[in-house]
């Protein structure tokens, strides 16, 4: 959580306007992950643990090189290892660094009811402010990438911060710093997009990957983390990366029609009952009960 900038353009559970909106040039930062040059060394996993000073956790052998089945509240950066056989019988060992995607339109933020628990900075970083988190877990339901994880003890939700503390000081995120092969890059989104496209083109032209492409899904408003994939038509191969992610329909329904309907119904109901009382009043006054009997139908 960074206090270094109040340049916040979106706030969860917030009534009213947002302080940072329209205050900055529209440069969003972006992490580029070239899965085709990732060697699964896990340096990024260690760097994330070290920079963020996260506590160690227990892991168990699970017939894979992957550190653990999925990210944890205290393990924000996990390389997913997937074996895939191509049509020609050759094997691919796909490694994808999985972490928060820092969506342009974050589903977590949309789903969060707590004022200021999730914010999006003007540079695009989506950050959880655990001090404001109430632990409802709704952000978990709002994320199409299954990223936010709750600490079961404290009921606060955690995820990759894109090292806002580093980025606000002009440094790259810790994972980028640690990557030995240069498969990770960090910079302005437009630049990263261009770099990614050039790599994808190289893979199409010089390697046996005619479907190589860039993963920057429009369904969530583009992401602050983009991938170069050997086969952009099959992102699911990379540990279930959704082909066309979007803010879940449940969150949309809940935050959209249901909210409207509910608000209208509640306010309408209150007004209706109030008017009813004005028109009809009580069925009977206690003291009148025996004497006068029912008094309806005065009109």
């Amino acid at each position, binding site marked *: 959580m960074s206090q270094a900038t109040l340049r916040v353009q979106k706030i969860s559970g917030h009534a009213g306007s947002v302080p940072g909106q329209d205050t900055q040039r529209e440069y969003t930062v972006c992490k580029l992950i070239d899965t085709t040059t990732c060697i699964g060394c896990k340096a990024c996993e260690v760097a994330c643990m070290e920079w963020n000073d996260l506590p160690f956790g227990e892991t168990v052998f699970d017939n894979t090189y992957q550190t653990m089945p999925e990210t944890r509240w205290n393990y924000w950066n996990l390389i997913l290892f997937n074996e895939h056989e191509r049509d020609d019988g050759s094997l691919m060992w796909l490694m994808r660094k999985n972490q928060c995607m820092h969506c342009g339109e974050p589903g977590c933020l949309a789903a969060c009811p707590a004022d200021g628990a999730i914010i999006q900075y003007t540079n695009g970083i989506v950050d959880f402010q655990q001090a404001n988190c109430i632990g409802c877990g709704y952000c978990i339901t709002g994320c199409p990438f299954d990223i936010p994880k709750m600490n079961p003890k404290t009921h606060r939700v955690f995820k990759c911060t894109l090292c806002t503390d580093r980025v606000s000081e002009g440094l790259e995120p810790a994972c980028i710093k640690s990557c030995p092969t240069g498969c990770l890059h960090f910079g302005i989104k437009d630049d990263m997009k261009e770099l990614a496209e050039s790599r994808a083109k190289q893979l199409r032209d010089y390697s046996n990957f005619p479907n190589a492409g860039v993963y920057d899904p429009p369904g969530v408003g583009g992401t602050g983390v983009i991938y170069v994939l050997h086969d952009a038509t099959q992102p699911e191969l990379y540990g279930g990366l959704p082909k066309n992610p979007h803010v879940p329909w449940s969150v949309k329904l809940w935050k959209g029609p*249901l909210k409207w309907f509910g*608000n209208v119904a509640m306010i309408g109901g*209150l007004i209706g009952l109030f008017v009813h*009382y004005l028109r009809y009043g*009580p069925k009977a006054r206690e003291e009148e009960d025996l004497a006068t*009997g*029912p008094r309806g139908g005065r009109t």
Partner: protein
Amino acid sequence: MSRQEQILPHGQVLRYTLRERITHWAAGVTYLYLLGTGLAFWSPWLFWLAVALGGTQVSRTLHPWAGLIFFGSVWYMYVMWAPQMTHTDDDRRWWKALKYYSTNQDDKMPPAGRYNAGQKFLFWGFFWANLLLFLSGIFLWAPQYFAWHSLVAMRISVLVHAAAALFTIGLFMIHLYMGLFAERGAFGSVIRGDVSIAFAKRYHPAWYKEIAGEAASPRK
């Protein structure tokens, strides 16, 4: 408690036993809390409710516990009242005459028993909504303990919880209106437990007849 004991001195009739009243208020108080905190989570514009109710995290922490008490209370109501809540032919006629009821022409209503059809609807409405709220709530509370934990289930739970809550809010508003404003004396019945004979005769004539008749002829 025999029917006879329900006839009290000073022209009063015992409508709710102490156990029933305690159960009602356990549900009532927790519901109010659940409503307040729930509404806070429902809309940013009402988030202040959570602050007012002791703080946002406290609200989130206590909401499910309150929910458990509420669930238990409503469940106990089911145990106590379910047999009295069966739908009868009278109830069908009552629904047909709803427009008289809502315009305070109670004399045109078919005679209601201890609970009229509207109250029965309230009961069953709360009962089923309570079940949904409980199930979805438990899941949202601690998804990690369920083997079938999945995002889809959580997402459904969010919707179900909100929708069921909205439904209860509708019921609750009518219940409150009836109890506090429309039927004078009803509120006292869940505090003191008794209503006047006039109240009983007026709103629940069949019930009163039953008690009074029984009091007169101890055979039944």
